[in-house]
């Protein structure tokens, strides 16, 4: 009996990813891995610091992963709406970290820009999409005039643009990737790979030490742990290549490398920003380790690099 060969008791009239055999299979595999890992870690959750951290991380994914799959499986445009919502939440946390969340003009301009990106991605208007940072900067420059104030305005305008570029323009490339053939699988592929890479890097930090790459920024990232996490991510990328439109080696190798190395850089860049602002975390991501931006920060580099690797290079 084929475990994945089942049909829904209720037929859904709108085509959704749930109709696909591959999507259901992926959901089942990923959720099984998460829940089995959670069951094992739960037993040792108080053993040492690493298990405490792992448990905090995985328990949030017990809640988040089913929600993510459920939403990504909805008919279009809901996955894109969902991604736009995530980008807005990420921007919100960025503004909180930077202490300008109460500067509503700038915050709302950034939010509006992100919504604009979502609409551009939906209509395949890459020209408008790429012009959006200029529009956001231009509108931000009008705020001092509207408020008739100059105090700290350079700071606010710069940070608004930074928030928009990182958490809007970069992250929303996932929305453009959604438009690829089997785009929904590729977005899931990237999310799974980047999250896996980060967690393995954290877990391996104890066993594979060696030279610290950036001791002043993140002392827990060592050459050994990073190399092992990249290799494990590449292995996972190869194992899950059925999610890509083309299963040939260059595709999954490129994806695995982009997800692991791009994620690594994104994480470090956000750590730089957090450290400069003197802020470690804003609040828990659902119920686990770090805030929502910690989950997102890897994708701010991965999404645009992956998009251009796939469209230009391959």
């Amino acid at each position, binding site marked *: 009996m084929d475990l994945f060969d089942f049909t829904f008791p209720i037929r859904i009239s709108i085509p959704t990813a749930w109709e696909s055999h591959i999507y259901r299979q992926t959901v089942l595999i990923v959720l099984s891995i998460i829940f089995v890992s959670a069951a094992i870690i739960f037993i040792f959750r108080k053993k040492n610091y690493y298990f405490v951290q792992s448990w905090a991380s995985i328990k949030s994914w017990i809640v988040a992963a089913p929600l993510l799959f459920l939403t990504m499986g909805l008919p279009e445009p809901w996955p894109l709406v969902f991604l736009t919502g995530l980008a807005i939440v990420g921007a919100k946390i960025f503004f*909180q970290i930077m202490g*300008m*969340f109460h500067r509503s003009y700038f915050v709302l301009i950034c939010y509006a820009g992100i919504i604009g990106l979502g609409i551009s991605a939906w209509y395949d208007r890459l020209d408008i999409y790429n012009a959006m940072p200029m529009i956001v900067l231009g509108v931000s420059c009008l705020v001092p005039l509207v408020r008739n104030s100059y105090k700290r305005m350079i700071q606010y305008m710069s940070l608004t643009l930074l928030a928009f570029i990182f958490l809007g323009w970069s992250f929303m490339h996932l929305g453009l990737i959604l438009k690829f053939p089997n785009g929904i699988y590729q977005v899931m592929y990237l999310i799974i790979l980047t999250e896996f890479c980060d967690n393995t890097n954290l877990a391996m930090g104890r066993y594979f030490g060696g030279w610290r790459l950036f001791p002043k920024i993140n002392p827990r990232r060592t050459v050994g742990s990073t190399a092992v996490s990249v290799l494990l991510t590449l292995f996972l990328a190869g194992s899950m290549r059925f999610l890509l439109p083309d299963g040939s080696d260059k595709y999954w190798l490129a994806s695995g490398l982009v997800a692991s190395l791009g994620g690594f850089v994104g994480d470090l860049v956000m750590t730089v920003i957090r450290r400069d602002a*003197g802020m470690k975390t*804003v609040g828990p991501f659902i119920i686990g380790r770090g805030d929502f931006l910690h989950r997102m920060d890897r994708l701010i580099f991965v999404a645009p690099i992956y998009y251009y690797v796939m469209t230009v290079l391959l």
Partner: protein
Amino acid sequence: MKDWYYENDQWTKLPAYLKHLPLFTRHLDMFSVFMRFLWSIFLKNICFKFYIRLKVKGTPFKEIYRTHPKLIIISNHASHLDAVSIAASIPRRYWLNLYIAAAKDYFFSNPLFTFFSKHCLGAIPIDRKDRKGEAINLILKLLTELPRMWLIIFPEGTRSKDGKIQTFKRGVSIFSERTQTPLLFTYLEGNNELWPKGQPIPLPGKLVLHVGPVHPPGPIQDVYTHYKQWVLTINPNAFPAEEPAPETTEEKKEDLENE
């Protein structure tokens, strides 16, 4: 170039359970505003309209809001309905300046309750076992620094078991006197019948909120006396029956002589 100053005290200096209070930013986030709007629709337009029929008697809140930007609203406390019923009687547009002092060990005991208390109630967590006075300082800070604030406090400190009004704790007077914030007397009639202590869910029925006078800051005994005088005009049985004074020996002698 000057160093950038990040105004992120709200997120760096406050513990997680206090971050929802606009202590530094004077700003409620949009998500909280939206959640409170949804909660207000449920509370005012559904719950307190069809399930519990809430009636407000006395001075309209509009008038009070115009003349008193800062106010401590005190009421009798006999059920979990009390805070939300006072909130439901206050116009929606004033809700963002409305805060409720709530027990931290109950209202912030798990993620679900915490979410509800933060985003729907606008609750200020009060640690009942706090010996350092952190909760008092927090409320004093809010009352001093926020330009507008209506704070709901139950001076009895806990829910009454029999619905009768108990003596007031000193806290209310401390907040009121130190910040020179006046007190608004309110009295809930029927709260104990609808949801007495120990009952899992409220019963449908009628609830009346009496809005009374605004009392100037003063010592707790003074506040209690005036509150009692006012409530007795509404409900003569609102307070526990006073025990008769013990008889003196002279009175006993007179009785014996008469016999």
